[in-house]
């Protein structure tokens, strides 16, 4: 079930997650493990629950049921000695989220701050690093995502691809244990998609633990250790890229992948 790094310890464990929005079941009994250094890619149609799963991990959405452990720590609360569930305070939740970087489909860069400040803000205010150090590190990270020279531009002055790379640098600046990517290239044209995927490929090569929701199946095949297919809130199939793309077992997976094959349309 787990991919390439099966000797590595489990970093993220999701068990029996349920989430409803009104009458719609967004997640049904979803379970998944991600090992340290593993690259997991989730695929599936829009509305299949991929984004909800990601957003439950850092509690932007609060799951109705189920449990999430990050590095052995229960996300979003804890059980008291008598077995009672105690919801995490907003401060505790904030501390837990520091270990999880998130990249959004719509970038969500802080609109009033320069690229450099977008990256430096978290380390400076959340991790209480000295300003000069936070900014020096932010410069390095911007260079790493190929944006040296763009430090002082506002988000509105950057292309979508550049904004998304700033967003990746911003997430990395917190030194997260896990990076979540929620359809990071869905809002971008093919050329801009490519520059973002290249940065993600570099991260993958550095053994960054990544959980990626994407429709870029080529990327999934290239970097993923493990691919999961979701349909109607259920994780219906998990396997290596070869298993999922070349020998999908579940009829839904087969139908979904057929849409992408040359004969599909």
């Amino acid at each position, binding site marked *: 079930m787990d991919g390439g790094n099966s000797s590595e310890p489990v970093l993220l464990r999701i068990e029996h997650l349920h989430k409803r929005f009104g009458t719609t079941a967004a997640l049904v009994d979803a379970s998944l493990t991600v090992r340290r250094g593993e690259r997991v890619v989730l695929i599936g149609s829009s509305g299949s629950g991929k984004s909800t799963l990601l957003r439950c991990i850092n509690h932007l959405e609060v799951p109705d049921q189920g449990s999430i452990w990050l590095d052995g720590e229960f996300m979003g609360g804890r059980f008291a000695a008598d077995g009672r569930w105690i919801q995490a305070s907003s401060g505790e939740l904030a501390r837990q989220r520091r270990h*999880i970087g998130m990249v959004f489909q719509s970038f969500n860069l802080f609109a009033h701050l320069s690229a450099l400040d977008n990256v430096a803000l*978290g380390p400076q*205010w*959340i991790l209480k690093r000295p300003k000069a150090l936070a900014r020096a590190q932010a410069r390095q990270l911007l260079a790493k995502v190929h944006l040296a020279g763009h430090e002082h531009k506002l988000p*509105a002055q950057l292309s979508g691809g550049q904004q998304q790379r700033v967003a990746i640098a911003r997430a990395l600046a917190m030194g997260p244990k896990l990076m979540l990517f929620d359809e990071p290239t869905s809002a971008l044209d093919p050329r801009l998609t490519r520059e973002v995927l290249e940065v993600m490929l570099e991260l993958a090569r550095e053994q960054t633990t990544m959980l990626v929701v994407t429709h870029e199946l080529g990327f999934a095949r290239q970097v993923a250790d493990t691919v999961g297919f979701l349909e109607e809130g259920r994780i219906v199939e998990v396997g290596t890229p070869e298993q999922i793309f070349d020998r999908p077992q579940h009829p839904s997976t087969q139908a979904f992948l057929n849409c992408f094959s040359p004969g599909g349309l």
Partner: protein
Amino acid sequence: MEDAPLLFAGLDVRFMVEIFPRMVQALLVTVQISALALLLGIVLGIPLGGLRVIGPRPLQLLIQGLVSYIRGTPQILHFLVVYFALPGVGILLDEYWTGVVALTVIAVGYEVEIVRAAIESVHKGQREAALAQGMTEPMAFWLILLPQATRRMLPALTNELINVIKASALLSVIAVNELTKVGNAIIYNTFYFVEVLLEVAVLYMLVIGALSWLSKYLENKVFSFGAALSTPETR
């Protein structure tokens, strides 16, 4: 008034010049009280407006109730409450501070709503990105939401200062020497109705016009990241 009146369009210009220094002095009192009230209103209105959006539910309802009371009652009521009711619970203020406190109450009532609307108009992805990075709600408010909301508040806040200046005319009923009161006093002594009222009106208009201009200037020059705010989504 020994000299012959200098008439222009039927107005006694010499008299208007003569009373001008007193009127300007009264205008300064008006502006001073209004500015103090607006400032106190902002100091209270921003945290209250923030809590109105991100605070615990009971607190949100409490603030909403307060706002409904302030906005749903005539402004003069707030002056009367501060002037007559506060001494009953042991708080004695002179006329000047009665004016400041009552105007602050009025200002807060509207500023809470201005802050709330501005905060809620910031794209929700901004708050999510802040929280996802590990900021607490207050941090996200002060570092991300409020700076972006500030520019949107400015026109409304200037309007509110204008409202407060206009409401300050009600202070004449508790004998604060602001512009309307001083104008009235001169009229009672001299019966120069038109000259005094015209001068009062022009002075109010000058101050309020200057404020409107200032607001537009700030909006355009100081907070120039506006382009980014209008299109927080993909470009």
